[in-house]
């Protein structure tokens, strides 16, 4: 039993921390948020050079060949910096889809370019009517001789703008919420019939609504089995939830620590705010909930490494807790920063926004509590 980081993990953590220290001052970040692309291409290249984009990719394809506990270290560190580059969309969700779902040829062709930062991916799984259910899919996939046609609309696809390929879930057969009949395809974003409307999200990222109008996909771009894509989708979601939770735990740490510092500096009624017992206990509660979240993050991650999909229940528990605690810590960090907390000038508000969006991604707190209780 051992919760220490391996030497490689420690190096990874340090390299992320250094990168953030050097490159992610709030002002710089907000500049990137306001840019057209919404993140920095040079940073993206640095991330590729540091090997982060290959964290999930087998060594044979040029990656690091890490498992979910390595991803956890990466994402927790990135969460401390509110990093904008599409690592989550492309290097976590996207590569999982390719590594587990694509044929050898596609892997050989695509993975090295993902690792090198040359290409980016994004996963289009959500549909408006589905709310948080992965198995509620109406986008239609029709087979034809040499491939498939997709028609339908995918919603809130993070970082689709600027992606080269889209991983898209659609229905080959079955009823609207049948698990059987779901198919995943790798779609060239430049294909005819793909129409994308992009917009910023509250946390400074980018998302898109995407319409597919009879879009052609070659047979070789089938991911997983035709009609049997649900299990791959679940793998993507499990990795996604673990990674988002790790990012959230990183953000929570910044929030509680920033609050501790701020209240020690800010004076009211001739005392630093941190002298007030009510605020002290609030910070103790924030700290305790953060530690609890971190414990559950370790638990869920290590269980998934050991048992895969069989650890799904703990993953539900984690996402529930991350949503609940993230809101709790975020609300209190803002409250204890007072007026400054509700402005864009301090970083607490930005971390809080990211936590809010994380709660809404892949199912919110209520949703996962209900799944856990099932």
């Amino acid at each position: 039993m051992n919760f220490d980081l391996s030497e490689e993990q420690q190096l990874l953590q340090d390299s992320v921390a250094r990168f953030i220290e050097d490159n992610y001052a709030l002002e710089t970040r907000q500049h990137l948020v306001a840019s057209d692309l919404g993140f920095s291409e040079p940073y993206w290249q640095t991330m590729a050079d540091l090997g982060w984009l290959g964290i999930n990719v087998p060594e044979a394809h040029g990656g690091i060949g890490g498992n979910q506990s390595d991803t956890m270290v990466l994402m927790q560190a990135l969460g401390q910096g509110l990093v904008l580059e599409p690592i989550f969309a492309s290097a976590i969700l996207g590569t999982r889809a390719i590594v587990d779902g694509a044929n050898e040829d596609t892997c050989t062709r695509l993975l090295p370019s993902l690792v090198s930062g040359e290409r980016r991916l994004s996963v289009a799984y959500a549909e408006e009517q589905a709310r948080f259910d992965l198995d509620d899919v109406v986008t239609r996939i029709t087979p034809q001789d040499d491939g498939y046609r997709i028609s339908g609309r995918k919603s809130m696809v993070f970082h689709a703008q600027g992606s080269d390929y889209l991983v898209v879930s659609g229905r080959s057969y079955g009823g609207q919420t049948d698990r059987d009949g779901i198919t995943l395809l790798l779609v060239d974003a430049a294909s005819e019939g793909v129409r994308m409307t992009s917009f910023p999200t509250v946390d400074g990222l980018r998302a898109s609504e995407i319409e597919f109008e009879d879009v052609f996909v070659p047979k070789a771009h089938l991911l997983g089995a035709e009609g049997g894509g649900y299990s791959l989708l679940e793998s993507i979601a499990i990795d996604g939830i673990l990674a988002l939770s790790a990012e959230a735990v990183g953000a929570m740490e910044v929030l509680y620590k920033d609050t501790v510092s701020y209240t020690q500096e800010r004076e009211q009624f001739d005392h630093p705010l941190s002298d007030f017992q009510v605020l002290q206990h609030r910070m103790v509660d924030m700290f305790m909930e953060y530690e609890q979240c971190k414990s559950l993050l370790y638990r869920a991650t290590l269980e998934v490494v050991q048992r895969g999909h069989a650890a799904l229940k703990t993953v539900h528990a984690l996402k529930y807790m991350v949503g609940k605690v993230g809101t709790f810590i975020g609300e209190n960090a803002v409250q204890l920063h007072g007026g400054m907390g509700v402005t864009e000038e301090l970083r607490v508000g930005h971390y809080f926004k990211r936590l809010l969006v994380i709660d809404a991604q892949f199912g919110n707190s209520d949703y996962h509590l209900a799944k856990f209780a099932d």
Partner: protein
Amino acid sequence: MDIDLSPADIAFQSDVRAFLAENAHKPGEDYAAWRLNWFKLAGEKGGWDIPKWPVEFGGPGWTPTQHYIWEKETASAQTPWDLPFGLSMLAPVLMNYGNAEQQQRFLPDIRERKVNWCQGYSEPNAGSDLANLKTKATLSEDGTHYTVTGTKIWTTLAHIADWIFCLTRTSDSGKKQEGITFLLIPMKQEGIEVKPIITLGGAHSVNMVHLTDVRVPVENRVGEEGKGWTYAKGLLAHERTGLAGISRSLVALENLRKQAATVQRGNGTLLDEPGYRAKLAELEVDLLAAEYTELRSLASAANGSEPGPESSILKLKGTEIQQRIQKLTVEAGGIYSAAWGQSSAGHKFARGGMTGYLSSRAYTIYGGASEVQKDVVAKNVLGLRKS
């Protein structure tokens, strides 16, 4: 003990409803013209444009029950936007402590919504501890004017205001509540710089106001030098009760329920999901109770009694309820609440859901942070002192 409205109250309610229905904004109608006319017509009803002003200043002299009816009816009807700064914050100070000349000079313009005011109280180091303010006002040797230098913060709508009413420090000796002076200052002049503060929802509503050697004629001082704190204090308590927003929350909750009913889940809607349903029910129960807490507070005021202890909790409960409604709106919108601004994604109501929620976080900070409010209740209502 009864909750019936008197026949007179019922008649008043009908009258209000008729007025609001008749004068609602019609599609296509010019908003600004409609707005000013609405206030004019309301004034012609006998001071309905200034419901809380005393009779001697043209107010309608309503009973607390009538005020309650007015609040409840206007919360759900379409009424023009209005700002509290001149109308509800400065006006009472002028009525109580201003001289006749000041009253004649400023009140009519406030009533006609001609002049916009903003409030210069908080400073970077004087938030919850407002009396710590440092903006310096020095009286000239000839006694004709003050020179004001300092920085005000959280100044709502300073960027569209014509005037600011300011608490300034004219003396550093004695307790910090002493030596504070209440000044009225035109905004459009040399030495005043307004810097926007963007809040989490992305909105520009509050500002930083820097004053540098601003000359203020002594005629613009309200009341005596050094007594400004006393003038402002009563007002703050008054401001807090207004912030509970129970009537508005009742309307907002009703909207939320309608919105959640549009989120289809299986054969039902989000309202059928047990977790969401329970949170909505808990919120509704708290609001049912808070509505009566407000009525109890009004009823004791109507009897001419001092406000009972129940009134002290209204801002605390009311703002918490407002925040919970916003939070449940975000949850109803799911991931679509994350879309910024006018995106086309998801349920229509979800757009801006998170920004509304983020803005609502300020409710428990501005106008007396909840923690400070609880200190006040502990001291004034429960009689506890702090170490």
